[in-house]
């Protein structure tokens, strides 16, 4: 069967399931890659009126607190330190500009695609301090951990990380604890689930009574995930389903989890919009303090501040859609981005700007009704 026909089958059943419900179903896709793929593949345009797919706090750059960005850019401006970063981070602006702007002014900022590449640079230039901006969820944390372990075993003293890794479960809990956000079920993040395993979402099902479905990134897989959530909700069920068993096991990737645990310990972390949450991030263990740039360079974080008029905080918590922002598409565009959700390729604002700007009016109305 062609994928268009399969999709039609899914959407037909979905429409029938939700027909006649008083309230639309609010289903959150937690993962930034899901957000982008839903927009790019047109999945959002195929949702029946009774289903709303809302984007969650799954873009690593977007959830990073503003004060971390400030500290990172300030470190880059010192002159004697090279910042190694994944590409998405480079254009996020703090109070004193972005890494990109700092680079234009002479800071040494290099985009790497892996921590291995970062290590290689540190080996090649042993005289220079190399600091890797370690952001991301459980997806990227194992690679950071592996790099720290490798640096430690080699005695690579000029390599360190500025950690801001986040854990996904605390964010989901925080949203459910917030009476202002209505979520009927979760499309669970694919990549993170590969690491932490499908069972990690058990508390969301058990304690919060929300169905969770782990699914892949293809358009059909995502629609299938939404369909399974709708089936559960309509039948009054609350289960954890794994529709992506080819990549996600029940227990996750024990090797990756061990790496994380070897280098990091769960600690209080500052999130954009969600604030400081205990046990929601990863601190470098004392044993590896020499590789923690916060300690190595004696960096303390300043105050948080949102760019004026920016509603990224509301966007990543599902309280608003990008087109509700006054800055969207006018002052704030991917080129002259104000907030991180417009900068990041996984950000909700950028996805809307690229793929959904034209249907803005409609989408705003639908969301205002559903977000109480």
């Amino acid at each position, binding site marked *: 069967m062609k994928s268009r026909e399969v*999709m039609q089958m899914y959407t037909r059943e979905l429409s029938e399931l939700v027909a006649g419900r008083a309230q639309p179903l609010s289903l959150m896709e937690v993962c930034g890659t899901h957000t982008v793929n839903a927009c790019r593949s047109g999945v959002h345009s195929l949702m029946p009126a009774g289903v709303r797919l809302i984007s969650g706090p799954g873009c690593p750059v977007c959830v990073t607190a503003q004060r971390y960005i400030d500290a990172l850019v300030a470190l880059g401006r010192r002159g004697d330190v090279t910042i190694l970063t994944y590409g998405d981070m480079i254009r996020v602006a703090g109070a004193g500009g972005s890494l990109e702007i700092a680079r234009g002014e002479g800071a040494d900022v290099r985009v790497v695609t892996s921590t291995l590449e970062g290590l290689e640079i540190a080996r090649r230039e042993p005289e220079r301090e190399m600091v890797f901006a370690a952001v991301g969820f459980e997806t990227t944390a194992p690679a950071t951990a592996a790099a720290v372990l490798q640096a430690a075993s080699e005695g690579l003293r000029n390599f360190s990380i500025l950690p801001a890794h986040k854990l996904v479960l605390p964010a989901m809990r925080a949203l459910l604890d917030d009476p202002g956000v209505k979520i009927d079920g979760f499309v669970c993040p694919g990549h993170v689930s590969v690491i932490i395993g499908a069972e990690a979402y058990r508390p969301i099902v058990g304690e919060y009574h929300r169905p969770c479905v782990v699914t892949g990134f293809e358009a059909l897989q995502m629609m299938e995930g939404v369909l399974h959530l709708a089936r559960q909700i309509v039948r009054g069920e609350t289960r954890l389903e794994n529709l992506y068993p080819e990549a996600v096991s029940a227990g996750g990737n024990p090797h990756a989890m061990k790496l994380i645990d070897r280098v990091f310990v769960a600690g209080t972390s500052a999130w954009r919009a969600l604030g400081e949450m205990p046990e929601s991030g990863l601190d470098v263990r004392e044993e590896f303090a020499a590789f923690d740039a916060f300690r190595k360079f004696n960096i303390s974080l300043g105050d948080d501040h949102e760019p004026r008029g920016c509603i990224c905080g509301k966007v990543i918590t599902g309280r608003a859609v990008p087109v509700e922002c006054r800055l969207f598409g006018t002052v704030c565009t991917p*080129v002259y981005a104000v907030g991180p959700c417009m900068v990041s390729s996984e950000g909700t604002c950028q996805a809307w700007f690229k793929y959904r700007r*034209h249907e803005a009016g409609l989408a705003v109305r639908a969301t205002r009704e559903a977000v109480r």
Partner: protein
Amino acid sequence: MSGPSPANLLRKRVVLAHGGGGQLTDDLVSELVAPRFANPYLDTLDDAARIPMHGGEMLFTTDSYVVHPLQFPGGDIGRLAISGTVNDLAVCGAIPQFVSLGLIIEEGLELRVLEQILESIASTAREAGVRVVTGDTKVVGKGQGDGLYINTAGVGAMRPGVQLGMARVRPGDVLIVSGPIAEHGLAIMLTREQPNVVRSELASDVAPLGGLIEAALRAGGESVVFMRDPTRGGFAGVASDLASRTGLRLTIDEEAIPIRPATRYAAEILGLDPLSVANEGKVMLVVRPGAMEVVLRALREHPLGKDAAAMGRFERFDDGLCEIVTRVGGRRIIQKPYGEELPRIC
């Protein structure tokens, strides 16, 4: 929030993205460069300027090449320089004739590499039917360049009777692309980012298109109304530009866009949208519906157009949007890429 806005900071110094070929490049050129030289030949900001000469019309273009690495699967900076220059002329309806060659060489470049690149320039020029008629050579100190930069200029005579322009596009017209997209940009990125990937099937499509374009024009005549080579900004750049500048709705069928599985896969690992990735050996054509079959046949008979396909249609729905019907039947828009992620692709 305190401090200057990011937009203002971006107006203080040049950042890499100013060279990305997207919105920032446009802004730099239209705000800083073009106004200082304003004249009717420049002001259209086309890839080539149309200059009256000896009763006919000449097309004049220039381009610089800073691609890294210098040699890549499917080509090198030399083949790229000749192809890029003649293609800019050919899509405007000219017959490319003469090319200049400016070499800026970094101290330390292996002569063996330089020789290979010059050989490649010579053979590509023969293939394109142009002659290198003037040039210049400069050497800069180690660390002040990156191996080799090339600047070219190209001139060609306008084909008599050919009328191309966005103003001729009208509802019902069909959009054609001459073959599988996104291969140049992805081949470069893959070589750069994943040098350890043993052997990729992916190679740059870089090629001079004069012959292919001539075949299409011969078959379609006046029914070919517009052509553009989708280089930086890729397929999406040209398609969105066509929609917004004609003011018509352009609807694209994603399934009909030719793209090789290896390309799609590479785009996925690198996190790039193949629609926005540069091509260096493809042309996009807008043709009248009645001429679609003959133009497609002519393209497909040429070795560089074997996989040509029609995948879009202009509709009388005056919103200037380019909309794509996705593989699964969903809909979304295509916009001009703003040109950030891929420096030094050409």
